[in-house]
């Protein structure tokens, strides 16, 4: 059987269909192979409340199609998305000026997912991300100066300069990483959710709201990885308070989602494990927020996990090293037109929640915050040589006993030395 070829037209047909409203089934638009029975009607791009999925409602209620926000909510969401966007733009600038190094993966375009989900969380709730983690950190409340300093590799970074772009952690904000290998954060998130259930059931420690919730963010490429499936199973088995948030931006570096995935509809994989699977327009922060609310509340009530697939897009390449030559201009411009920040701005203005100049002043404020973060990072010192051996072990006795019978770490000059054991 001849291999299917995915031309741009075949690929973009469903994409174009999505922008118009009802999304055409991916297979029906291509003549790849004959179907023996009609393809199931796909979920529309309107947000579906999780309860709709559970109750089998095929038609999304009208209200869910146009979720609303109060002025305060809308401005909070706007500010958070603008922070994410301006921060990432500054990262690109700083990278090309030689202030940050290595692999840097920017989040431009995906802000609605981070903001839509994370602004609903409490401090005690956890976020686990991937290497595309700067904006998750910011949404969770990690100060921009700490993130920027970490990116510059300075001692004042949130991880003392030891982690870098792909390893953002913050214990006070319950940001549990920052992971370089895709998929490896999902079990960690599952463990954090397990700990929340354990605290409640074994240690009898209960929060006033219910269980602490963990959000695991990851991409479309990760959804073909074993750890994803293993954790869907375990999370549902034990009804863990976790939400699996798929940021489906259609590309894993240069691998298009449809070229890598036998059934590209990721949300369908939730019900296969017994949990609700929801598809939502990830370019619309209010829709994301609506779905997120229900998924998080479900988890908090102890009803278990939800798989949320957010259709989103990254405006930049996979990383700053990616020439981004495979993605077609039509696709890029299609999503650029759905910029989540522009969409929310339009909504705010049209609903008279705030004026243009108020939004401008938020943008100016964020400009200043980001500038200040850069200044802070610039002025901060690099880590001293003595920092090298700190934090290898929580208990430095792990470096062992030297020939003189004393623990190596007892030597005050130990950290100037080497780690050989």
């Amino acid at each position, binding site marked *: 059987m001849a291999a299917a070829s995915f031309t741009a037209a075949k690929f973009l047909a469903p994409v174009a269909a999505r922008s118009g409203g009802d999304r055409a089934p991916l297979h029906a638009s291509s003549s790849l192979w004959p179907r023996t029975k009609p393809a199931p009607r796909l979920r529309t791009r309107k947000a579906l409340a999780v309860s709709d999925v559970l109750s089998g409602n095929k038609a999304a209620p009208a209200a869910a199609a146009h979720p609303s926000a109060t002025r305060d909510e809308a401005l909070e969401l706007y500010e958070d998305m603008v922070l994410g966007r301006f921060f990432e733009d500054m990262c690109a600038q700083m990278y090309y000026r030689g202030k940050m190094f290595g692999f840097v993966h920017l989040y431009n375009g995906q802000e609605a997912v981070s903001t839509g989900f994370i602004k609903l969380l409490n401090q005690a709730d*956890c976020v*686990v991300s991937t290497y595309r983690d700067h904006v998750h950190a910011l949404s969770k409340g990690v100060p921009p100066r700490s993130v920027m300093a970490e990116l510059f590799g300075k001692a004042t*970074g*949130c*991880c*003392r*300069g*030891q*982690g*870098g772009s792909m*390893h953002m*952690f*913050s*214990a006070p904000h319950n940001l*549990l*990483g*920052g992971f*370089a*290998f895709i998929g*490896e954060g*999902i*079990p*960690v998130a*599952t*463990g*954090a*959710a*397990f*700990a929340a*259930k*354990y605290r409640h*059931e*074994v*240690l009898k420690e209960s929060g006033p709201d219910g269980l602490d919730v963990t959000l695991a963010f990851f991409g479309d490429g990760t959804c073909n990885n*074993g*750890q994803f499936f*293993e*954790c869907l*199973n*375990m999370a549902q*088995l034990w009804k863990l308070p976790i939400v699996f948030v798929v940021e489906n931006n259609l590309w894993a570096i240069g691998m298009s989602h449809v070229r890598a995935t036998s059934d590209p509809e990721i949300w369908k994989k939730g019900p296969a494990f017994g949990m609700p699977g929801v598809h939502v327009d990830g370019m619309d922060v209010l829709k994301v927020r609506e779905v997120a609310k229900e998924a998080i509340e479900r988890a908090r009530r102890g009803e278990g996990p939800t798989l949320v697939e957010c259709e989103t897009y990254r405006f930049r390449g996979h990383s700053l090293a990616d020439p981004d030559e495979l993605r077609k201009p039509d696709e890029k411009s299609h999503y650029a037109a759905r910029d989540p920040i522009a969409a929310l701005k339009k909504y705010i203005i049209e609903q008279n929640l705030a004026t243009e100049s108020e939004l401008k002043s938020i943008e100016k404020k964020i400009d200043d915050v980001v500038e200040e973060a850069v200044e802070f990072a610039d002025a901060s010192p690099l880590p001293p040589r003595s920092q090298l051996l700190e*934090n*290898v*072990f*929580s*208990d430095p*006795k*792990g470096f*062992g*006993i*030297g*020939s*003189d*019978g*004393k*623990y190596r770490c*007892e030597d005050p000059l130990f950290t100037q030395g080497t*780690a*050989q*054991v």
Partner: protein
Amino acid sequence: MPMATASSSLHGTAAALHGVGAAASSKPRSAAPVARSVRVAAAARGSGSARARGGMVARAAVAANAVAAAESKSGGHELLLFEALREALIEEMKADPTVCVFGEDVGHYGGSYKVTKGLAEMFGDLRVLDTPIAENSFTGMGVGAAMKGLRPIVEGMNMGFLLLAYNQISNNCGMLHYTSGGQFKIPIVIRGPGGVGRQLGAEHSQRLESYFQSIPGLQMVACSTPYNAKGLMKAAIRSENPVVLFEHVLLYNLKEKIPDEEYICCLEEAEMVRPGEHVTILTYSRMRYHVMQAAKTLVNKGYDPEVIDIRSLKPFDLHTIGNSIKKTHRVLIVEECMRTGGIGASLRSSIIDNFWDYLDAPIMCLSSQDVPTPYAAPLEDATVVQPAQIVAAVEQICQ
């Protein structure tokens, strides 16, 4: 996955040779607890050994026949190695409600090697969690749970299965405390039976200590007696570092009398098994018994080997090892790892770096052959180091 019954054929050997420091041939069995009571007394003064108390004093040599006989408070109780591990688990789980166990068949089945027998009934299904067959993910779950304040013990039904968890063990257990700038600790214990058994086939006969030893941020210990099994398990659970505890498939039914009082063993220390003058033999886990069997032969031939069970595979206890080398000037390493890249290779390297001037002969290292462990019995026997080879090696070194 097939469950191998731990052979008790070593039991006879162990019973005859047992004792921390007890010169087995000259002391009656009942003297065995005496040497141990040195540690017991130390433990009774505080939690754990002097080191663990933060005293960090220079380590007193735990020699044979320590004069602490009077400090032994009671006769002790006899049990098998897997029961000693179990006892440690029960004690720690009772003392600290954040201690929990994850693994395949650890709960209702009681553990493939019965280490967790009865624990699920005692502590519940959440504290003794029967996991699906997903090593990488449940090990990672252990990491996440540890980051959020629990103290999980992750069991690999066979250590070899943890190859599937290498991603999590290397990247997260080992590195996460560092990459987070010290914000999150991972007080996890990863344990399970490994080593060459009785015709278990290549995949069930692996020595993962070779593969894990490069991972920064990890500690590795290997238990070999009921006494040190219990002590190391407790120490590993209490440690704030991720610790890999290597048990051996063939040692679970070793029987020994251990103290009734609470004690722990120091994770970073080696164990003096038999003091001697002519040659330092460094070994660990099952090979300790092959060495002690060879020692009987060697003693009859007039040799006086000093046998040290290194116990701490990472980091090495350079104090105990060094003191021995300074005395004997000759070193033989006997390990079960394959020749290439094993613990022996690193140990040899470390000895050369630190004690070169004290050596009168090249360091000899006896390792398993670089072959997948064959199923056929004579081939399997030829894969690992046998006592006759150890005797021949000592004769060669001591020429």
